[in-house]
């Protein structure tokens, strides 16, 4: 009888024992992958979101830091203003290479062109912009014309329509940015020319006209010179330009990152407790099974099976159960997390972007290897003890 067949027969022979080990492994695997996916999904979303912002430093009006970060992260409405004169003051700070203003227009609620209930309108300056332009150069190969807009992944042209109508003004969706899992996904970007045309049109075509306060902006995107110290530049902006606060892009969403770290440690603690308990339970189950099967093992030894063969047969049994449980566990948790990603985002209050295939498969492989190692370690001692037993003594006992 081959080793694999013997192991499979042993699994079938004691359904209860096998089910306990299988379920333990399944539970650990699903919890392990599930929590890792949620945390890495949030981290992935943050990184993609910060990358999409495309600026080294964001300068926002004093007191509006949290508001702007929440808007960018979770898509909460915001309405912040500062004088446009700040642009020149920021540009004059040593180490600043480029500055570009952006204006947050009034949020739209229940817009038919957006698959979420709130949509943001962000106006950029094509003459100075360096955040939207790289995407336009790559995807469109030209700047946005008057009346053209680009949207986040949640923005679409309503079915049966040719345009997205905003404040009674028809705009053409020139393209969509990739998903980030953050508030950027529900943002519509347009040039100042389009925004002004829309505001002008809204006086006669919209129920509530669009108002763009003259000489006001919402934030300034800052690109620093190559080799310049980002932190130093940010400090200089804080000291030299009054009424504004610089947000360094790697440090953005700090409050959220802090919250996420707390959550991560909570998950890790639960996971370690769960993991230790499962390893002990699996070891105990195999230990009991080994004791029960003394006679059977004695017969095997009497028939010529070596100690190593007995040892390997018990390990093979554990590996089969571990692989089966781990695979089913990772499939189940990935399926559930993928399906309920929107619910997780809204209930945990964190952005979420499902990791790419490569990192997802990496997570699955690491998780499965970790589970396999755990089960092998838990089974090693009982398998070793039973394999060392003398056949005559084992049969008599």
């Amino acid at each position, binding site marked *: 009888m081959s080793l694999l067949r013997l192991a499979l027969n042993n699994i079938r022979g004691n359904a209860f024992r096998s089910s306990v080990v299988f379920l333990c492994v399944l539970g650990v695997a699903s919890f392990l992958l599930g929590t890792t996916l949620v945390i890495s999904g949030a981290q992935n979303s943050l990184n993609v979101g910060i990358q999409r912002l495309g600026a080294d430093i964001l300068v926002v009006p004093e007191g509006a830091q949290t508001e702007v970060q929440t808007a960018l992260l979770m898509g909460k409405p915001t309405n912040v203003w500062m004088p446009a004169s700040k642009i020149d003051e920021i540009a004059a700070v040593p180490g600043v290479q480029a500055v570009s203003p952006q204006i947050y227009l009034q949020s739209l609620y229940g817009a038919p062109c*957006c*698959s979420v209930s709130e949509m943001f309108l962000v106006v950029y300056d094509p003459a100075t912009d360096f955040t939207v332009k790289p995407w336009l150069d790559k995807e469109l190969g030209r700047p946005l014309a008057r009346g053209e807009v680009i949207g986040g992944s949640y923005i679409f042209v309503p079915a049966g329509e040719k345009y997205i109508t905003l404040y009674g003004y028809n705009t053409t969706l020139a393209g969509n940015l990739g998903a980030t899992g953050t508030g950027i996904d529900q943002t519509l970007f347009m040039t100042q020319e389009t925004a002004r045309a829309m505001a002008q049109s809204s006086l006669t075509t919209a129920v509530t006209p669009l108002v763009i306060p003259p000489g006001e902006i919402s934030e300034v995107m800052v690109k620093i010179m190559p080799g310049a110290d980002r932190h130093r530049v940010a400090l200089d902006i804080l000291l030299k330009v009054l009424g504004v606060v610089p947000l360094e892009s790697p440090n953005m969403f700090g409050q959220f990152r802090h919250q996420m770290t707390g959550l991560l440690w909570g998950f890790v603690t639960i996971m370690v407790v769960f993991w230790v308990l499962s390893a002990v339970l699996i070891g105990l189950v195999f230990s009991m099974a080994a004791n029960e099967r003394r006679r059977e093992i004695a017969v095997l030894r009497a028939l010529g099976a070596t100690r190593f063969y007995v040892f390997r047969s018990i390990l093979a049994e554990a590996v089969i159960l571990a692989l089966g449980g781990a695979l089913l566990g990772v499939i189940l948790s990935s*399926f559930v997390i993928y399906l*309920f990603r929107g619910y997780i985002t809204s209930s945990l209050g964190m952005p979420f972007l499902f990791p790419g295939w490569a990192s997802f498969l990496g997570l699955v492989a690491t998780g499965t290897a970790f589970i396999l190692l755990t089960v092998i370690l838990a089974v090693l001692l009982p398998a070793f003890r039973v394999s060392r037993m003398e056949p005559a003594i084992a049969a008599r006992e």
Partner: protein
Amino acid sequence: MKTKKIFLGVALIIMAIAIAAVPHFNTCQYHGRDITTATGTHVPMKCNWSAQAEIAVGATLLTVGILALVSRRKETLSFLSIIGIVLGVVTILIPTRIIGVCSSLMPCNTFMKPFLVAMGTLVVSLCVVGLVVLLTSKEKEA
């Protein structure tokens, strides 16, 4: 075989009740969101109709579960499993294709739709496994 039959029947009954009941507590209307017309009339959104349709699917699945519990013949149980598979697929198709739900980040899209997809997948998986077990079993009666 009897234990497996009872397991299939009870599992289908529990899932049928969940499919029929849970969506009603997760529609946009239940969470106070509906369309108000110019005349002030409140019109339910399409997730509400998906939830209503799932009652019919749930009721049929409940009947299938009860029949699976009382049936003895292997052929009958096999046919009930096939009906279960079809109902599982319909459970998934109602919120995703046939009727649909509201837009992203609405309560029906974040919970009701994934819940129905998960339940539908579970029903299909259970019935497929049940069918395979029945077809490979040598016993004539369950």
